[in-house]
């Protein structure tokens, strides 16, 4: 239960980090918060020859909010992103998801971008990025590219990052006006990986009718799985929309697997119930968001 030996690199500039990463290639691994990597090392499930510690790259410890959305730097800890008021106002789903990431003590150290590239199919933040249609900025010694969440995940614990690339920033786009979100999950104990988790997004049009309804699933597929469920609830006002039907629709489109925590059948059941619950909560949040952003016509004179 001790990590295997490795060569330790502690670059103080991004350029140096990229140089080392380019040189070590597949034998190098980035260390940011370490809350997933160090357990893997302690259990000897991973044994990279080189660790490149980016904790001295203060330039990556940032959270920026603008009209486009929220940009989270590679060294921003979950706890910092969770506590950022302007980020939570711009995209409430960030805080809704972050509150479910492990325990507060883990969130003090673990980074949001680290969680995104770790690509655990049971992790919350990849589902958030996927649901919002966000992206990751990747840099290497030879260039820079932006990869959409939909193209980022290849399989369980596997992303499309090349060995010489460092994810420097995640971009979470601001949802359309009139959008509400919710994140619900069932875990055996608080803070554990969810047996099933659902992040949901509902957008209402100017007549307060459902114009968009999507959900992203964790622990239900090898990668974060996003379903468009609008056909079950399109054009309905939120109080009469049949979110239970959307839940049944989702269940039919998901194909979870058995594991030691739950049977596929139980997971599918949870997905149906949690989809309805998350969409309903998201719709209520959308009504609230619209109510806050425009005057009440009943009271207007």
């Amino acid at each position, binding site marked *: 239960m001790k990590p295997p030996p490795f060569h330790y690199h502690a670059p103080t500039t991004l350029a140096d980090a990229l140089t080392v990463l380019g040189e070590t290639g597949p034998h190098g691994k980035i260390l940011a918060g370490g809350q997933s990597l160090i357990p893997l090392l302690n259990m000897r499930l991973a044994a990279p020859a080189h660790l490149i510690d980016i904790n001295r790259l203060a330039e990556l410890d940032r959270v920026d909010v603008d009209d486009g959305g929220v940009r989270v730097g590679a060294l921003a800890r979950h706890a910092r992103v969770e506590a950022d008021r302007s980020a939570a106002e711009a995209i409430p789903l960030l805080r809704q998801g972050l509150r479910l990431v492990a325990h507060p*003590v883990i969130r003090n150290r673990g980074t949001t971008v680290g969680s995104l590239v770790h690509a655990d199919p049971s992790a919350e933040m990849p589902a958030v990025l996927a649901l919002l249609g966000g992206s990751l900025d990747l840099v290497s010694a030879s260039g820079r590219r932006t990869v959409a969440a939909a193209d980022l995940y290849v399989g369980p614990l596997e992303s499309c990052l090349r060995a010489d690339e460092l994810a420097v920033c995640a971009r979470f786009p601001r949802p359309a006006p009139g959008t509400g979100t919710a994140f619900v999950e069932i875990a055996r104990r608080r803070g554990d990986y969810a047996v099933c988790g659902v992040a949901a997004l509902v957008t209402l049009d100017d007549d307060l009718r459902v114009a968009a309804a999507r959900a992203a699933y964790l622990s239900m597929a090898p990668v974060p799985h996003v379903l468009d469920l609008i056909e079950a609830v399109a054009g309905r006002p939120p109080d009469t929309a049949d979110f239970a039907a959307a839940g049944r629709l989702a269940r039919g489109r998901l194909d979870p697997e058995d594991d030691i925590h739950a049977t596929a059948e139980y997971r599918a059941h949870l997905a149906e119930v949690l989809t309805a619950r998350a969409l309903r909560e998201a719709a209520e949040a959308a009504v609230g968001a619209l109510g806050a952003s425009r005057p009440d016509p009943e009271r207007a004179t």
Partner: protein
Amino acid sequence: MNEETHEIRLRVNGVPRAATVPARRLLSDCLRHDLGLTGTHVGCEHGVCGACTVLLDGRPVRSCLMFAVGADGHEVTTVEGLAAADGTPHPVQRAFRECHGLQCGFCTPGFLTVVAAFLEENPEPTEEQAREAIGGNLCRCTGYVNIVRAVLRAAELRRAAGRDPQAGDPAPRGPVRRQRP
């Protein structure tokens, strides 16, 4: 393999310390073996049990999920650093003693550090918040009821000390509500 070592300097419980460690030395092992501070307990070594929790620059972290080299230049507080310089126990330590918040004591250093930091951020927690704050720490003896009680009692002791350092202890709380299943 002759392992490469690194010189690190950090402040532990207010005292400047130095150590020479291989990069793979966990902070938990550095504290216990290199610095002789065995108050930090090591349970699972993969971040699940919480026994090894220490404060890094005032915030609780798992010392088994950090390398000692990563603590270079930082401030670490272990359970040994909670009591006042004259040995007066921290309000959290007093509350755990008073409420019988420990039995075998193995998990206790992790609880004490987590709760001490939690009460700095939230001096008047509800029972639900207290329960969430300790959600990442495992205790195999107590069943948590007295630990939750100790968190709330520690909050009372802190508040009393804040109002008037000379004041006597407020009356202990009655039994708290039953634990959520």
